[in-house]
């Protein structure tokens, strides 16, 4: 009964592969240096078969989902075209978004796993390094082309047959604002790959190389069958074509369009972004890997959150994004914001199409931005994303002050920030009235503000939904949009756009308000006790209760 590739063996190897990718994640987190990885968990780990097909991935943050398979495949192709092979003990590193599949901050590291001289798999991880050089601290902000966003690392062997190339590490360190974090986090990525390699070799020893190699395609087939079965089970009313559009805001204030035609067929789904805006000379372009990740996020959430995610899933889902558009730009378009902001809008536009197909399963729009804030001065850089409101759901209010859709990172505790950096916080509170009114109210955004304690502190805001607002559904109203302003120590107030870099001097305060989620259903239908509860809690004001909720 044992030895052959029966269903139980495949399931055992599937569980083993998932466990290993998760253990790699724990190893990366534990050994990492920066708050960005340790506390915000901005990383992902995966196992891929010798052909670069994703077989297992630890689910950490959605934006890396899907981009990992695109990334390792492109990396393998690149190495082949260069005539480079990956030997035992090698680790290859790249952050080129046009290979790795997200943005420069995300550094992809890949290691081959050999057992008895045969290639069993690749282990890979991707981690967001807080600063990767470029014009602004945190490396996301004004840039007209990729090289202005930071150091571009074309694929290199950072470890060659087990020996770390310290000369390269020093080269990288020389080009970033936070060299200690870079080195520590890089070592953590390597340590995590070593853990994955050791565990896979143990598994190969236990099950045999042939069993492992035979199991990979079976795992991929399983994910495909699973996805197709779930799509077949969708109600007949959800089959057909559904169109949706939404917008992102350029730094000059114009709107760029995202257009989607979603086809739900018998046992497959096709997402076609034809008609979306041409790529732009600012970082809003989302590389194809990001477009894949955001599309997959929305589909998985609505169809079945438990759906296994590997290459097999992509056989049931096809994603068409014409080259040269903001959803599949060509080099050298800058891409830093595509990863963090356009990705949110891609998820929105897919959810908006799905809301037509499966209305009872889809909430109103969540805030639609990660509200990125990068702060830095001489020798320091700090990055955070701020929570906001989630969209109201059919049957329940949105959630207040939470990370939504493509991100789920932790906040950095105020006490940790104040200890490390010359800034002092003034507030961190929910933003009343920001949730879209509705029978079910959209979640509230957040107000976060801090004061600079030294001169020359550079702040970059990279956010969205300042010109548009998170949409409601079924008569629910939109949530309030993003705002940011600086209150100078003199008392003068300067309003900021959603994408802007400014300098704070000692005593200047920046106040950021993140958007609320859209409402669901007619506000006048909201139960009176819920309106009164919101009022008592100060989540809505008296004026809003009177104006929006038909109360006297």
């Amino acid at each position: 009964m044992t030895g052959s590739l029966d269903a139980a063996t495949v399931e055992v190897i599937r569980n083993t592969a998932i466990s290993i990718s998760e253990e790699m994640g724990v190893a990366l987190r534990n050994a990492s240096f920066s708050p960005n990885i340790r506390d915000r968990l901005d990383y992902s780990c995966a196992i891929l078969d010798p052909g670069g097909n994703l077989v297992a991935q630890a689910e950490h943050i959605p934006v890396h989902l899907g981009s990992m398979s695109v990334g390792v495949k492109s990396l393998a192709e690149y190495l082949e075209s260069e005539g480079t092979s990956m030997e035992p003990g090698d680790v290859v590193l790249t952050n080129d978004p046009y290979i790795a599949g997200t943005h420069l901050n995300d550094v992809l590291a890949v290691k081959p796993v050999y057992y008895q001289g045969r290639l069993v798999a690749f282990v890979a991880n991707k981690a967001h390094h807080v600063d990767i050089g470029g014009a602004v601290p945190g490396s996301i902000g004004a840039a007209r082309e990729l090289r202005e966003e930071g150091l571009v690392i074309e694929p290199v062997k950072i470890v060659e047959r087990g020996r770390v190339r310290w000369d390269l590490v020093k080269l990288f360190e020389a080009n970033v604002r936070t060299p200690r974090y870079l080195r520590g986090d890089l070592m953590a990525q390597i340590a995590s790959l070593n853990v994955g390699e050791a565990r896979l070799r143990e598994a190969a020893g236990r099950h045999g190389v042939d069993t492992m190699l035979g199991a990979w395609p079976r795992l991929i087939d399983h994910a495909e069958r699973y996805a197709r079965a779930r799509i077949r089970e969708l109600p007949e009313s959800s089959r057909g074509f559904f169109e949706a559009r939404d917008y992102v805001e350029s730094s000059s204030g114009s709107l760029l369009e995202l257009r989607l035609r979603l086809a739900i067929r018998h046992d497959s789904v096709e997402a076609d972004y034809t008609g979306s805006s041409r790529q732009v000379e600012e970082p809003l372009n989302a590389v194809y890997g990001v477009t894949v990740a955001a599309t997959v996020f929305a589909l998985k959430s609505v169809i079945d959150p438990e759906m296994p995610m590997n290459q097999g899933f992509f056989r049931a889902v096809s994603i068409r994004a014409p080259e040269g558009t903001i959803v599949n730009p060509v080099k050298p378009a800058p891409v830093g914001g595509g990863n963090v902001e356009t990705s949110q809008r891609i998820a929105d536009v897919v959810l908006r199409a799905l809301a037509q197909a499966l209305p009872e399963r889809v909430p109103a729009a969540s805030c639609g931005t990660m509200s990125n804030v990068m702060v830095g001065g001489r020798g320091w850089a700090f990055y955070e994303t701020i929570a906001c409101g989630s969209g109201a759901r059919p049957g329940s209010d949105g959630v207040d002050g939470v990370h939504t859709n493509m991100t789920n990172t932790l906040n950095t505790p105020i006490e940790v920030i104040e200890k490390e950096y010359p800034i002092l916080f003034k507030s961190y509170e929910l933003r009343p009235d920001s949730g879209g009114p509705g029978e079910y109210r959209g979640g509230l955004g957040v107000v976060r503000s801090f004061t600079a304690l030294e001169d020359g502190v550079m702040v970059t805001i990279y956010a969205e939904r300042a010109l548009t607002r998170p949409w409601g559904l079924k008569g629910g109203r939109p949530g309030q949009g993003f705002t940011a302003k600086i209150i100078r120590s003199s008392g003068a107030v300067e309003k900021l756009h959603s994408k802007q870099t400014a300098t704070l001097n000692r005593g200047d305060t920046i106040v950021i308000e993140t958007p609320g989620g859209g409402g669901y259903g007619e506000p006048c239908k909201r139960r009176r006790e819920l309106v009164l509860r919101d009022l008592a809690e100060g989540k809505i004001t008296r004026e809003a209760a009177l104006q929006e909720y038909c109360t006297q």
Partner: protein
Amino acid sequence: MRVGVDVGGTFTDLVVFNEDSGDLRALKVLSTPKEPWRGVLAAIMGAAEPSRVTIIVHATTLGANMLLGQAGLEPPSMLLLTNKGFRDVLEIGRQNRPELYNLFFEKPKPLIPRERRVGVRGRIGPRGEIIEGLDKDEIRETARKWCGHVKVFVVSFLNSHVNPVHETEAERLIREACPGSIVVTGSSVDPQEKEYERTSTAVVNAALKPLLSRYLERLHLDLKREGFRGSLLLMQSNGGIASLGQAIERPAAFIESGPAAGALAVSYFARIHGVARALGFDMGGTTAKASSIVGGEPLVVDEYEVGARIHMGRVLRGSGYTVRYPHIDVVEVSAGGGTIAWVDPGGSLRVGPVSAGADPGPACYGRGGEKPTITDANLVLGRLPEKIAGGSIRLRRDLALRALKALAEKIGVDVFEAAWSVVRVANTVMARALKLVTFERGHDAREFKLYAFGGAGPMHAAELAEELGISEIIVPPYPGVFSSLGLLLADYRHDFYKAVEASATDPSTEEKVNKVIEELSGKAVETLRSEGIGMERSRIVAALDMRYEGQSHTLKVAYNGSLSEAARRFEELHETRYGYRLPGEDVIVVNARVTAFGVTGKPRLPRSKPAGPLHPRPSSRREAFFPRDGWVPALVYERPKLRPGSLVTGPSIIEDSDSTIVIPPGHTARVAEDYSIWVRRG
């Protein structure tokens, strides 16, 4: 007589140890959530004469049930006083959502609603400096306004772990303005950095205090009235016990202590057995639990979430209420006897997380269950006898076969292969839990011995040991009630800590650290003394939380008074744990920690000298399935008849009223002096 009593939401488990006879009895009665002391009192009186009971160790989920919104248990009305502009820190938490792909996710309701969270003037800076003074009138006014409307005041200000002066001042002002009120401050219950965790720990403590102090006082009083003269002690989630008086000061430390007891029982036996690394594996009816014991102590995590949901052995972060107290690291997965096997939409065989529970239970129980469970698979494979629980439950093989047949057809194999597949997949799920508490915590599972208990643990242990590369399994006595036994084996334990935040290379730091350790040790000794534990029975252990400069997490390193020694150990540990060190980087002392143990007298469990190698007679034989050998005749032994020194070779099965041990071919079992059974390959 010693009594351990573990009160859950539905059932109360009781274990009574009679030291004269060595008899250990376990009982299960229904809990009485509305008047919890009544049920406990009735249970104890039903099991033992109160005047003859010397020690009662109590674990209860009453507090956790209240936080989870159990009907009839309302949290008290509370007011949170915090910095102006920061009243939503408690509600926003760490801003993440507990589930990535669930668009309908919810976060737990804040224990203090927004209108009772008040921001006031005053601000402490990151180095303890006063940036803005406290407005005393504002505090007095707030306290007066809410006095009588709320039962508990919680005070939590930013950076108060560095300088608590504003919190202590506010506490004083509130007590003056509203005499008789309960006041809890963040810096007094959890003096560590990170404002959300500290505030949450304070709020959870505050929420529990009125209910639990009332409950425990009432219980104690009623017990005394019935003639009880012994000590009533509380089991804490750090695996130690505490006196009533101590426990009530930090109630959040004992609200989820049930799972700690099993790990503790393992640690007790591991110490006696001289086993340096022990892996506890407890498989019951709905879940399997794993815990690691290194050097005689269970692994402990410094933070947990009360009432959190768990997915595949991992806590869904943000799904419960954060408490930053040491907690025994127990990982739980959905794999127990009643866990259901099924085929997913992709055609793969899966086990769990759904369980058939106690009703209808596995198909073979004959109570209407039709879905195949792990128990059904074990029965069909000849591992489980057809009569269990001392003959009171008859298992129906025909019904198990019928349930498994449907599964077998779906995956295209015969019914026996389906049964074996269920066991294999279940083992993979459980192996995951065991790997989480070893490999993921930086320990190599191959260096451990596996302690298997719970009704089903000893049945799966041999194959799990092989999967993990473990060569020896120990099945302790009383495996079915082993967890509850842990309640009777605990020592007193109290953890103290304080932020230091200084460089290890700074020559003045050692003195600073020693001063803090001295202060904490003083508290520790005083606490144990208040519980009647003198110096001769106490053990004080110091440790430091250390990290490289700029790194955001810490490693815990034992401290013997020499800081350079501790820094050296830190670098060694960093290398073993993470595979690298950073010579030349500064090392920071983040917190100083002191743990105080008060050694208690332990019950005398039965022992006898082995009478040379004995070869007991099997009571019967039956066909059982083993992966490498297929169906083979296995000898069946009755455990109560096995004496120390007995040897049993596989394939064989050792049956007891509450647990079955499977000895595969090629394995040998030996009964030790203390009646534990040691199983080895070869």
